[in-house]
C-alpha cells in the first residue's frame, strides 16, 4: 500500500458464496505496534498541530480515514 501502515489481502471468493465477494480487504497496522518502548526526545508536533493530529509525536501519527477516503480508493476494491 502507499502508506506503510495500510495492508491489504484478497479473500478467496468461493463459487457458492451467498454474498457478493469482497475482493480486497484493507487493514491498518499503527506505528505503535513497532515501538515496544517509546524512546526519549522524539521529535514533537507544535502545540497547535498536536491537537489536530491527535498525538504529540509524528512517529506515532496514525490517521484512520473514513471509509470513503481510505488509501487507494474504496475499501472494497
Amino acid at each position, binding site marked *: 500500500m502507499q502508506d506503510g501502515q495500510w495492508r491489504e489481502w484478497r479473500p478467496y471468493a468461493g463459487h457458492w458464496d451467498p454474498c457478493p465477494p469482497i475482493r480486497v480487504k484493507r487493514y491498518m497496522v499503527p506505528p505503535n505496534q513497532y515501538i515496544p518502548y*517509546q524512546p526519549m*526526545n522524539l521529535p514533537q508536533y507544535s*502545540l*497547535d498541530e*498536536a491537537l489536530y493530529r491527535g498525538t504529540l509525536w509524528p512517529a506515532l501519527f496514525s490517521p484512520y480515514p473514513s471509509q470513503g477516503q481510505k488509501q487507494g480508493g474504496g475499501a472494497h476494491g
Partner: protein
Amino acid sequence: MADLNGAVERPAAALQQPPERGGEAYRRELEELQKVDFVLVELNLYLDTHPTDMQAIQQFNQLAQRRQQICYAFEMKYGPLKHFGQSFSRFPWQWPETPWPWQV
C-alpha cells in the same frame, strides 16, 4: 453572522457589553486552552512510563504553568470553567450562566 441562538454579533456593540460568552472570541480562546490541555495529557501519559525523562518533565511543568495563566485570563474574562471551588466567580454567582464550556 447570527449564531445558533440568533444573537447577531455586532462588533461595535460588543465592545461596551461584557465579552459575549460562547461567541467567536470565546471559542478561539477556549481552543488555545484545549491545545495546551491536550499536550499536557500526552506528556502526562508519556511521563507515567518515562519517569526519568528530565526534558519532558520540564516541558510539562512549563506547559502546566502556561495553562494556569491562560485559564486565569479566560476565567477573568468569561467566568468560571469549573465549579466546586476549582474556579473563582464574580458577583453575582456566575456558575449557572449559560453556555457552559462543554455547550459551546
